[in-house]
């Protein structure tokens, strides 16, 4: 993936966030076209689709629904709406110190600095009124965390549009699934009123069609996850970050196509005994236990290049996807949708009892043959920090792997410099793991 150009906005003037992002993605796209990089165009195609779909929603006669947390996006799409996952703002601008800082600083005028920068960045954009688009509705959940619970009610009032809240249960069990399913039932009239469309047989048929497409995407994602189990790992750590885009795009042919290309490429490389990683040779299989470091995804390339250490999986991106069955049975579909909502990344491990996260991590260490354990702990995610010792003790006891704790801000690049981070990881790799540094 090509790196986004550095900031190109005038800080003294209001920013149009969506327009700016579309322009940036487009310039990367044009750059890659001129440079003739067809083998990686698909990584930008999907970003172009994502942002332009948001920008052009109303122009295309669709309602734009901002959302936060786990919500049933396939139902939104069945009602011909464009879901706009607000977390894509912070993850997109994380590498742009000035823009990211602009929004984070704005939020910190009213909210604690300790709040998660994912929420600070999107809330800051809302506080400044710089989305640059009209939001027709806001749908959010009561999870993932306390930070989101500061941001969502504020954004509800700032957006001043119809809102719907899903209350997510603390425990993810049958009672919890039924509870969310009841709320999905209540969501239908909300969508009907918002769009003026009826949840009739035709709409349901469309919903089934979108769910089938979503199934395709998730089954490819599962195959990609399986592919990452190969030793050596074929796909770079970076791809884990890109694949998170499935959250708002599930059910679109575009995301299915992107994942399919990635899978074909990965399989082809595996067949040829090659990898797309930057490793001279794979020496270590790393698991990042917490969030992705969007503010510095290059760190994974560096670990590959200098230590042969590939991030095979991450605790944030790990997908326990649900494939829908018996789609014409609405009662069953609601339960499956509820389950899929509670199993999405960050929700599956972070929102409920520590036991859930423990299970996710245990599964990853077991299935991905991890031998380097890094708790790259996002400082905003205090509740995962507060479960850290339980989980890392398990890793030590069961797998005999000591864990490196590094505090980072997954979104705010100002928190820790690249040099500092490299020094911390490098020291661990060389003195604890005993790794050779190929870059020296």
């Amino acid at each position, binding site marked *: 993936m090509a790196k986004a150009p550095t900031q190109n906005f005038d800080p003294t003037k209001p920013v149009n966030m969506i327009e700016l992002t579309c322009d940036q993605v487009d310039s990367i796209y044009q750059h890659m076209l001129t440079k003739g990089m067809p083998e990686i165009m698909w990584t930008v195609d999907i970003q172009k689709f994502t942002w332009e779909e948001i920008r052009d929603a109303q122009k295309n006669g669709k309602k734009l629904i901002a959302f936060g947390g786990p919500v049933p996006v396939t139902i939104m799409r069945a009602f011909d709406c464009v879901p706009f996952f607000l977390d894509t703002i912070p993850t997109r601008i994380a590498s742009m110190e000035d823009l990211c800082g602009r929004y984070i600083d704005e939020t910190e005028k009213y909210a*604690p600095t300790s*709040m998660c920068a994912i929420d600070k960045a999107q809330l800051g954009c809302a506080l400044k009124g710089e989305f640059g688009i009209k939001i027709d509705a806001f749908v959010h959940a009561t999870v993932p*965390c306390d930070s989101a*619970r500061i941001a969502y009610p504020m954004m509800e009032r700032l957006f001043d549009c119809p809102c719907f809240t899903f209350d997510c249960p*603390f425990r993810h069990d049958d009672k919890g699934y039924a*509870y969310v399913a009841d709320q999905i039932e209540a969501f239908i009239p909300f969508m009907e009123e918002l769009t003026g469309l009826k949840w009739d047989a035709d709409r349901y048929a469309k919903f089934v069609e979108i769910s089938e497409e979503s199934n395709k995407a998730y089954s490819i994602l599962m195959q990609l996850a399986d592919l990452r189990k190969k030793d050596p790992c074929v796909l770079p750590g970076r791809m884990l970050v890109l694949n998170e885009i499935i959250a708002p795009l599930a059910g679109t042919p575009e995301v299915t196509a992107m994942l399919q290309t990635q899978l074909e490429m990965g399989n082809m490389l595996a067949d040829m005994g090659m990898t797309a990683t930057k490793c001279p040779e794979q020496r270590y299989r790393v698991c990042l236990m917490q969030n992705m470091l969007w503010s510095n995804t290059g760190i994974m390339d560096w670990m590959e290049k200098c230590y042969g250490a590939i991030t095979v999986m991450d605790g944030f991106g790990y997908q326990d996807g649900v494939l829908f069955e018996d789609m014409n049975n609405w009662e069953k579909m609601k339960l499956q949708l509820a389950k899929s909502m509670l199993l999405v990344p960050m929700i599956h491990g972070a929102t409920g*009892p*520590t*036991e859930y996260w423990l299970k996710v991590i245990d599964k990853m260490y077991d299935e991905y043959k991890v031998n380097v354990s890094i708790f790259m702990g996002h400082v905003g995610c205090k509740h995962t920090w507060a479960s850290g010792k339980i989980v890392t003790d398990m890793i030590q006891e069961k797998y005999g792997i000591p864990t490196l704790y590094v505090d980072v801000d997954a979104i705010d690049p100002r928190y820790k410099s690249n040099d500092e981070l490299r020094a911390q990881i490098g020291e661990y790799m060389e003195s604890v793991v005993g790794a050779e540094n190929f870059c020296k």
Partner: protein
Amino acid sequence: MSYEKLFENNISSESVKAWKASGKKAIGYVCCHVPTEILIAADIMPVRLRATNCVDSSDAEAWMSSFSCSFARSILQYLMNGTYELDGLVQSDGCMMATRILDNWEHISKKNGKEQFVYQVGAPRITNDTTIAYYKSELQDLADKLGAFSGTKVTDDALKAAIAKTNEIRDLIDQVYDLRREAKVSGTEALNITLAHCDYTVDEYIALLKEFLADAKNRKPIEARARLMIIGSALDNPEYIKVIEEKGGLVVADALCFGAKAFGDKIAVDDADVMGSIAKYYLTRNTCPRSLDNRPAIHKEIVDACKKFDVQGVIYEKMQNCECWGGEAYYLEPDLKAEGIPMLQLEREEHMANAGQLAIRAEAFIEMLDK
């Protein structure tokens, strides 16, 4: 019994020891969304956990990290170091920090071979018929489990008897707050009184409150330079308010979960659905910003309390790393401003290491109000 016990700042284990010595169970709880009525009905002594005067939470920090809220961390410390010797812990997911007290304690106590009753109540964060029904079923599960643990089945009659007692407490606390309004009880005293609720059985607490009220009614009003309200994160240290009051402010009202918010209005019981009445009451009550749909109502309650208690200024204290009480300023401050009430925002930690700083900020605020 002397009501002086109400003013013992430290956590008292006297009552818990006596209760346990009689062969009964005592269980700790965190957060206002664990209805004590259910524990009382199961003949279990509810002990609301607090961290008052915890000066070193380093053992707990090893488990919860330095990024956790120091109130939550200090409670875990008190569980780990034996300040609390209880039969278990019940908690609702008030905030994620509180939640992790339970996760860690469950893990640590198991590791140490300490048998504990541990249960987490899922408390919804929005209020409507669906969420109340879910919460009711969570409470019913809790009641069944507690009943099995204590050997006393939770019945409707037992719940109603417990409600009668907790309602009596609500009534008595209301009278304490009336005295605050008349400036006959200081904010420091009031927090001591409400904190004592954590340590005593309901019957003991009722007796203490009655004795205190009988005496306090004859007091003369306290002279003060400014009438204040305090709101924000869990505050279980009366010394914090004392520092403010020593500078001439009188804290006449609060929206604290160890203060007024722990009590609230009385529970109205529907005989046909006693557990449903409890669920409805606890979920409808605007205790804190843990919910997503109650912010405007919380703000209104704060503004209304300011009017009722003739408040001149609001102190909004935020525990570091407390997101739950972190984001109220944006909408609350203009609401208060519209009524001519300024707000002072302060950050704090459980251990009051910065009393001098607090005194300076409080004095300047009081000075401004007194002009």
